[in-house]
C-alpha cells in the first residue's frame, strides 16, 4: 500500500516533466540498446565460428605419438613408431560410455592415377568409424565394410578434389579402378564436398581406404601415425581424454615416473582457443557499450540533482504535510529507478530491433542471449538506485523550514 502510494507519487512527479524524463532516459536507452546489440553481434560471430569448427567434428580426439626422451635427437611425431593397433584394442577394451568412435590413421602420400590423368594426393588408411568421427558424409556409393578391413580389400572412397582431377570428363567414378602407387583400388564411394578447412586446407583432397590395406600393401608398416576417436558429447571429451591416456599408458607399459610417449588433443581445446578470441571481442564491445550505460547513469544523477534543487519548495511542502524523510528519499529513488527501468525496457526493444536490423542489412550472424537482456536490465536497476541515491538522500535530509522558504 505504502509502496504503491510512493510509486504513484513518483509517477505523477515524472509526468509533470515528460520531456525531461525522456531526455534523461535517452542515455540509458542508448546504453542498454548498444549493450544488447553488441552482445548479440559478438555472440553471433562466436556461434558462427564455433559451428564452422564443429563441422570438423567438435567431439574429435586425436592421439599422436610423441617422444618422451628428453635427450637425443628429437623426431617429428609422424616418424615415431609408438602407436600400435594394440593401443586401439586397449581403448576398445574400456568400453567407455564417453567414447563412441575409434579409428587408426595410417597415411602416405603418392600419385593417384586413372588412365591418362594423375593427381598427387594422400591415401589415408582408416577404420569404418572414421566418417562419423570426422563428420564426413557419403554423396554416392558405400563405405568399405569390416570385412573389407579384415581382408585387406583394395577398395577406396574419394574426395571431390581427387574426382575432379581423375575424372575431369564427369563420368561416374563408382566401380572404376584407380591406381595409387601402382596398387589398383576400386572406387566404391564418393564423399560430399566439404570445402576448405578454417586453416585453408582442402578437405576434399582425400582418398580413404581400409587401414589394413594401406599398412600391408602400400607402407608395409605396422605402426599408426595417429588414432582418431570421438567423444560421445563435447562435454564428455575431457573424461574421454583421461580414459584414453590411462589405457594407452597401460598398453605402452609406462611406469608412473615416465612421461607420456604420445599426446591426446581434443578439438574442443582448439574451439575454445578460437572462441576465446571472439569472446574477448564480445567483452570489448560490451565494455564500450557499458561505458555509455554508465554515462547514462551519470545523466540520471545530474538531472536528479537539478530536480532536487528545483523542487526544494515542493520537498518542503511535502514534509510540512507529513512526508517523512524516508518518503522523500523513496520518492526520488523511485523516480530515478522508474526513469532507468523505463529507459531499460525501451533500450532492450531498441537493442533487439537494431541487432535484427544489422543481421538483415549486413547479413551478420547475431545471437540474442537472454542473459544479455537480464544483465542489462539488472544493471539498469542498479544504475537507477546507485545514481539516484545521493540526490534522493540530499532531498530527504533537507530541513522542511529551510526548504519551504527556499527561493
Amino acid at each position: 500500500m505504502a509502496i504503491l502510494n510512493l510509486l504513484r507519487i513518483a509517477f505523477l512527479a515524472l509526468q509533470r516533466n515528460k520531456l525531461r524524463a525522456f531526455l534523461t532516459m535517452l542515455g540509458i536507452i542508448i546504453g542498454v540498446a548498444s549493450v544488447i546489440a553488441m552482445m548479440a553481434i559478438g555472440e553471433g560471430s562466436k556461434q558462427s565460428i564455433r559451428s564452422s569448427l564443429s563441422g570438423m567434428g567438435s567431439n574429435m580426439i586425436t592421439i599422436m605419438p610423441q617422444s618422451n626422451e628428453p635427450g637425443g635427437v628429437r623426431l617429428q611425431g609422424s616418424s615415431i613408431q609408438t602407436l600400435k593397433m594394440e593401443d586401439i584394442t586397449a581403448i576398445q577394451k574400456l568400453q567407455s560410455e564417453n567414447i563412441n568412435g575409434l579409428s587408426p590413421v595410417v597415411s602416405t602420400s603418392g600419385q593417384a592415377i586413372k588412365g591418362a590423368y594423375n593427381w598427387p594426393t594422400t591415401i589415408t588408411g582408416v577404420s569404418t568409424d572414421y566418417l562419423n568421427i570426422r563428420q564426413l558424409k557419403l554423396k554416392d556409393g558405400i563405405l568399405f565394410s569390416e570385412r573389407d578391413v579384415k581382408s585387406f580389400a583394395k577398395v577406396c572412397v574419394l574426395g571431390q578434389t581427387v574426382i575432379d582431377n581423375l575424372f575431369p570428363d564427369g563420368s561416374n567414378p563408382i566401380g572404376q579402378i584407380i591406381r595409387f602407387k601402382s596398387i589398383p583400388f576400386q572406387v566404391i564411394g564418393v564423399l560430399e564436398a566439404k570445402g576448405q578447412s578454417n586453416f585453408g586446407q582442402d578437405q576434399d583432397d582425400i582418398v580413404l581406404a581400409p587401414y589394413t590395406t594401406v599398412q600391408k600393401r602400400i607402407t608395409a608398416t605396422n605402426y599408426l601415425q595417429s588414432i582418431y576417436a570421438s567423444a560421445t558429447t563435447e562435454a564428455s571429451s575431457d573424461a574421454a581424454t583421461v580414459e584414453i591416456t590411462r589405457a594407452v599408458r597401460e598398453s605402452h607399459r609406462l611406469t608412473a615416473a615416465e612421461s607420456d610417449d604420445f599426446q591426446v588433443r581434443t578439438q574442443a581445446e582448439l574451439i575454445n582457443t578460437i572462441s576465446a578470441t571472439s569472446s574477448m571481442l564480445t567483452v570489448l564491445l560490451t565494455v564500450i557499450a557499458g561505458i555509455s550505460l554508465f554515462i547514462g547513469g551519470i545523466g540520471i544523477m545530474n538531472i536528479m540533482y537539478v530536480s532536487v534543487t528545483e523542487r526544494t519548495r515542493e520537498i518542503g511542502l511535502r514534509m510540512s504535510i507529513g512526508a517523512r524523510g524516508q518518503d522523500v528519499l523513496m520518492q526520488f529513488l523511485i523516480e530515478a529507478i522508474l526513469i532507468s527501468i523505463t529507459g531499460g525496457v525501451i533500450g532492450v526493444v531498441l537493442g533487439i530491433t537494431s541487432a535484427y536490423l544489422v543481421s538483415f542489412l549486413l547479413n551478420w550472424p547475431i545471437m540474442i542471449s537472454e542473459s544479455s537482456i537480464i544483465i542489462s536490465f539488472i544493471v539498469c536497476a542498479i544504475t537507477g538506485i546507485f545514481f539516484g541515491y545521493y540526490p534522493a538522500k540530499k532531498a530527504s535530509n533537507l530541513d522542511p523550514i529551510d526548504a519551504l522558504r527556499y527561493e
Partner: protein
Amino acid sequence: MEQKILDIRDLKREFVMGDQTVRALKGITFDIKAGEFVTIMGSSGSGKTTLLNILGCLDKPTEGSYLLDGVDVKSLNRDELAGLRNTKIGFVFQAYNLLPRTSALENVELPLFYNKTISADERHKRAIKSLESVKLAERFDHTPSQLSGGQQQRVAIARALVNHPVMILADEATGNLDTRTSYEIMALMQELNAEGKTIVFVTHEPDIASFSTRTIMLRDGKIQKDSINTNQRSAKEALANLPESDDY
C-alpha cells in the same frame, strides 16, 4: 467542556549563531481551545515565524513544553513529527505551495498519500468533499496555472482540510492577495471556524486580525498582549461594504 488543542508553557527557542546565541522566543505561555480563531501578530523580528515553526511541528523548542492535542512534541523524533503534521495540522502558506502542472484534486489528495491508513478510494472521496467545502467543486481538474490567486489559496485550504486536522495553521495566508480576495479567504476561514475548526492565523495586518476571535501580539520574543476580540468583524459584511470600483 472546552478541550485544549494547544498548551504552551514557558516556551523558549534559542539559535546558536557562531559564538553568540540568538534568543528568538524568551518564554511564552498560552493555550488555545478547540473552536478558537486566533491570530498571532507581530512585527518582523518578533519571533512570529519561530513560533509558527514550532506550532507547526517543523521545529522543536529549546526549553518549555508544547502539547499539541495532548501530545508532547518535544519527545518526538523527526519521523514522528512528520506523522503529527500529517494528521493534526493543516498548513496554509502565503505562497500557496501547490504542485505545478498537477490538478487541484491531486494537490488536495497529496497529504493523504502520506497517511497509510487511507485507501485510494477514500482519498479521492475526501479530496472531492474538501474541494466542495471551499467552493471549488467545478475546478477539480484545473492546474494551479489555470486558477487565480484566491482560487489557488482555496485549493491550499482544501488541502489543509483533507486530513481532518485538529488545527489549521495559516502563515500570512492573505499576504499575496488583494483586499477583496483576502476578505473572501477570511470569510471562508470564518465559515470553517463556525463549523468548529480551530484556526491559528499568523499575520502582520491588523485588518485581518479583526476577523478573529482572539489576538496574540508578540514582541521581542514575548507575548505583549493576548486579548479576546469583543467585536469580531464579519468578513462577509466587510466584503459587501467594499467599494464597487475595486471590482472592474
